[in-house]
């Protein structure tokens, strides 16, 4: 009987009352529901498998094993934290969407067959777009629409891939894909779209910064991490994923340097961090897969923490551009400190959660004898520290005072950030707790002298470079002076050119893709106004068409 307590189903059904409950009851429900689901997920035995027979197909809606459980735990947990953060929001559509979204994410990671996966995949798309649309701005509608189209395209590739796989192998079980042929690549591309792998990533930095303040927290947790899970399940050890992943880490970091919107900056870092996971999947050893799962776990927590911090700033000041912010430390000290915990975690600072998970993937690359991968990942780590932990907080909370004097974020927001920060810290100092739930038993110790030394050196020198830079800058015109300074240093020319080239290409590609979509929209509205497709056809032309079809059919038929 307890087999039928599918957590995703309970969550999906539990989303419905949120639409009608009055505020106080809705808030209690919002807290109670994730706790119930979390306890159900915690109660799932490793190895549980529920199989049902539907329309002649054998479906496995529930499969709990080491890999899926890690993701299920963190999904349930982040729903609770996100809901606490969103308690004061008075918009039931957003709460229903967030809960359905979490339910479909949970359903996807627990799915043991491709049909269930596809169903959850599509529900996830429909539910998540509401989190973008509910920002209720024109830019958000447009971004949401583009998000929907891209994901629908991905969903269709997935469906085509699943059917092709089914026809080829006769099996719908969701295990590692061993066949070659169109099915393999169709499904892989569909998964990579959701993982925001370049060049299929344009939807993420486009849509995430436009989502509602609380919606972004959920968005950052589920879509890309579900993609990581399905990649880890379906494509472990696929060589090309290593390079895609490494490229993602550098690409995201590079572009994060150049953006001005704090949430867009963080969106690029999602891409960069997902890159580590994708690379981990590509390496495919037990250590790498465990590292991927661990990194997904910690990443969801610290990224949610960072986005909650950025969201709190946006919520209280109404601004999200680095150049409009500054000096918020005095007004929002708690937010600042909690944000910094997230920043130190994402940069893999020892004693924080990122350190114990990211180093696993890097170590896996090293053990596997992939020197270049190892070095490039370390390089991306430098960039992460530079922009998330130093640049963003410096220009938002420290730096030049922009004259903003908001009050501190509401209690529930601080509480949500506090819980996430506490978890980041606890995982950092007691990693054994996290290692215990990983898919493969790992014999890995993050706190060895060499790891500590390596990370500490890296971070210290990066920090030193940043603060040297900042001290030299002073003045008003930070950005251009910043570039000036770089230009004046010999040997940096190449780096700058490369960076600009990459960002230019990315920008062009993104612009090109988006303007294509926009041009389509414009053309449609133009046609709608000019009206020729709207007019009614005279009977004469209908009769003509009839005659044409008959004649063609007869001519072709009688000749043959």
């Amino acid at each position, binding site marked *: 009987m307890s087999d039928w307590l599918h957590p995703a189903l309970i969550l999906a059904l539990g989303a419905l009352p949120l639409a009608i409950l009055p505020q106080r009851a809705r808030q209690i429900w919002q807290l109670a529901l994730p706790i119930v689901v979390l306890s159900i997920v915690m109660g799932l035995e490793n190895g549980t498998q529920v199989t049902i027979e*539907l*329309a002649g197909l054998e479906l496995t809606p529930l499969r709990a094993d080491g890999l899926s459980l890690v993701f299920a735990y963190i999904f349930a947990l982040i729903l609770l934290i996100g809901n606490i953060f969103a308690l004061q929001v008075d918009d039931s559509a957003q709460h229903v969407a967030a809960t359905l979204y979490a339910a479909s994410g949970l359903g996807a990671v627990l799915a043991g067959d491709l*049909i269930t996966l*596809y*169903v959850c995949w*599509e*529900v996830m798309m*429909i539910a998540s777009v509401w989190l973008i*649309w509910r920002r*209720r701005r024109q830019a958000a*509608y447009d971004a949401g*629409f583009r998000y*929907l*189209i891209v994901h*629908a*395209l991905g969903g*269709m*590739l997935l*469906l*085509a891939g699943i*059917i*092709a796989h*089914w*026809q080829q192998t006769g099996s719908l079980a969701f295990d590692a894909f061993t066949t070659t042929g*169109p099915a393999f690549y169709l499904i892989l591309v569909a998964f990579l779209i959701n993982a925001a792998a370049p060049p299929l990533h344009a939807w993420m930095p486009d849509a995430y910064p436009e989502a509602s303040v609380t919606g972004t927290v959920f968005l950052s947790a589920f879509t890309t991490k579900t993609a990581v899970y399905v990649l880890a399940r379906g494509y472990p050890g696929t060589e090309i994923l290593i390079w895609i992943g490494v490229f993602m880490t550098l690409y995201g970091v590079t572009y994060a340097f150049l953006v001005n919107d704090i949430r867009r900056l963080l969106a690029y870092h999602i891409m960069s961090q997902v890159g580590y996971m994708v690379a981990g999947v590509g390496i495919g050893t037990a250590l790498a897969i465990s590292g991927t799962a661990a990194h997904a776990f910690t990443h969801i927590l610290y990224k949610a923490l960072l986005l909650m911090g950025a969201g709190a700033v946006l919520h209280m000041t109404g601004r999200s551009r680095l150049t409009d912010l500054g000096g918020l430390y005095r007004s929002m000290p708690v937010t600042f400190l909690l944000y910094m915990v997230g920043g130190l975690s994402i940069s893999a600072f020892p004693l924080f959660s990122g350190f114990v998970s990211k180093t696993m993937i890097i170590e896996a690359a090293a053990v596997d004898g992939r020197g270049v991968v190892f070095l490039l990942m370390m390089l991306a780590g430098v960039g992460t520290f530079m922009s998330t932990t130093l640049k963003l907080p410096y220009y938002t909370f420290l730096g030049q005072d922009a004259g903003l004097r908001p009050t501190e974020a509401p209690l529930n927001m601080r509480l949500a950030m506090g819980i996430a920060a506490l978890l980041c810290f606890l995982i950092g100092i007691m990693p054994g707790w996290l290692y215990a739930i990983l898919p493969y038993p790992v014999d890995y110790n993050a706190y060895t002298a060499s790891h500590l030394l390596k990370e500490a050196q890296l971070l210290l020198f990066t920090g030193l470079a940043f603060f040297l830079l900042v001290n030299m800058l002073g003045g008003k015109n930070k950005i251009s002076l910043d570039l000036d300074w770089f230009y004046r240093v010999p040997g940096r020319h190449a780096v700058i050119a490369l960076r600009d080239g990459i960002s230019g290409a990315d920008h062009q590609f993104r612009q090109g893709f988006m303007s294509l979509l926009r041009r389509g929209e414009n053309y*449609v509205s133009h*046609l*709608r106004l000019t009206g020729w*497709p*709207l007019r*009614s*056809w005279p*009977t004469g*032309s*209908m*009769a003509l*068409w*009839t005659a*044409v*079809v*008959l004649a*063609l*059919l*007869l001519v*072709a*038929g*009688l000749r*043959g």
Partner: protein
Amino acid sequence: MNLTELMPFSVLIPLIAAPLVALLPGRVAPWLVASASAISALAIAVATWIGVSQAGVLRYAFGNWPPPIGIEYRVDAANAFVALLITAMAAIMLIWGRATVNREVPERQGAFYALFLLAVSGLLGITLTGDIFNVFVFLEISSLATYALIAHGGDRRALLAAFRYLIMGTVGATFLLIGIGFLYIMTGTLNMVDLAERLPAIGESRALQVGLAFIVVGLALKLALFPLHLWLPNAYTYAPSLVSAFIAATATKVALYVMLRFIFTVFAPEYSFSALPLAMAFTVLAIGAMFAGSWLALLQDNLKRLLAYSSVAQVGYMVLGVSFGTVLGLSASFLHLFNHGLMKGALFVAAGIIFHQTGSVRLDSLRGLGRVMPWTLTGLALAGLSLIGIPPTAGFISKWYLISAAIDAQQTWLVVLILLSSLMALAYIARLVELAWMQPRPADAPQVSEAPIGLLAPLWLLVLANFYFGIDTRLTVGGATAAAEALLGMGG
């Protein structure tokens, strides 16, 4: 009375009730009698369907004249399945439509309901009969009734739409009659089974080829296959809500069924597909329909017209399934025939409710309506999900089977086209959602309120049916497969 004798009454009850209803005064009595006869037809259709699934084929000879001479009703899994759709839709729509008819056809409702019953019995007659001339007669009964029903639309353009439909419908019916004439001259019989036995003996014959071509083109007109769909958008748009909803859910499906009956039962599929390039013609026209229909739907500024063009696209899916000429393809067609009836029924019912409450179905008047009429618009959006093919809805099952059939028939490139055109469906449905929920309600918009429960209940019944048949597919997939096997003569 055993089932075989009961079966013809699903056609006869509405046919006999029609003149009775026409004479009834007032507004309540005609509606009550019409609904009662539709429900009893549904009950008989259900019984027939159960009987067929056990016994295989039911035959009933009218007036005890043995089949080759007299008219015979011959029901197998294929037409029992279609009859089930027609009667179920007629019953639900009639119960739902009373309030909309009161608003849109305030006077002489007796005549209106009588015509509606004639249309229902005509469609059922086409479906159940085993005699090709009888097909023509019932086609004319249902078509004439439909022209008159469309002309009842409140807009004056309804008259013109009805007139155009009349011209084109008559061309189609004439083509069909010419084809039937050719067959009768060549074989001397009008009974379908009899024809199927005698036709192979004739062998190569120009006359037969031409006859088949006339029949296919005539019926393609009735089922609004691109580019013969030009009558459909206006007819659906300007008809009264009840009529749009009913014919959108059934009329083109019946035409498709008859076409399949001719291609697969009367002529053997081996003959049809070799005598005329049907596989190619259907593939090309179906692709044209899928894209032209979806594309034009994107451009519309009227909800009913948008849905009408989307129907053109969806007919493309059904015909595409036929073009494969396989059991799987044919099952996909039948499945989509049923599922599309469900989803388009729900969508047109929602459009009817919107018209009833706001007095307009222009897309502009949908602005911000989601907050004012949440139940109606949510129903519309959910039925829209089914139209796109998002799981777990009936539309997803259709898409799944159609794609499977395409891959099975080694036409993998069609999968891309199917998916692209469903992406276009997503675009026009998302536009409706955007208008209803994202746009603010204009300040000068008329005051409207949510529809009464009597209008909403049938809508939600259809919406939930879309979800139910997206999860439990035993009835739909089983029925469609049995229908396809019956047509291909494999199920006995």
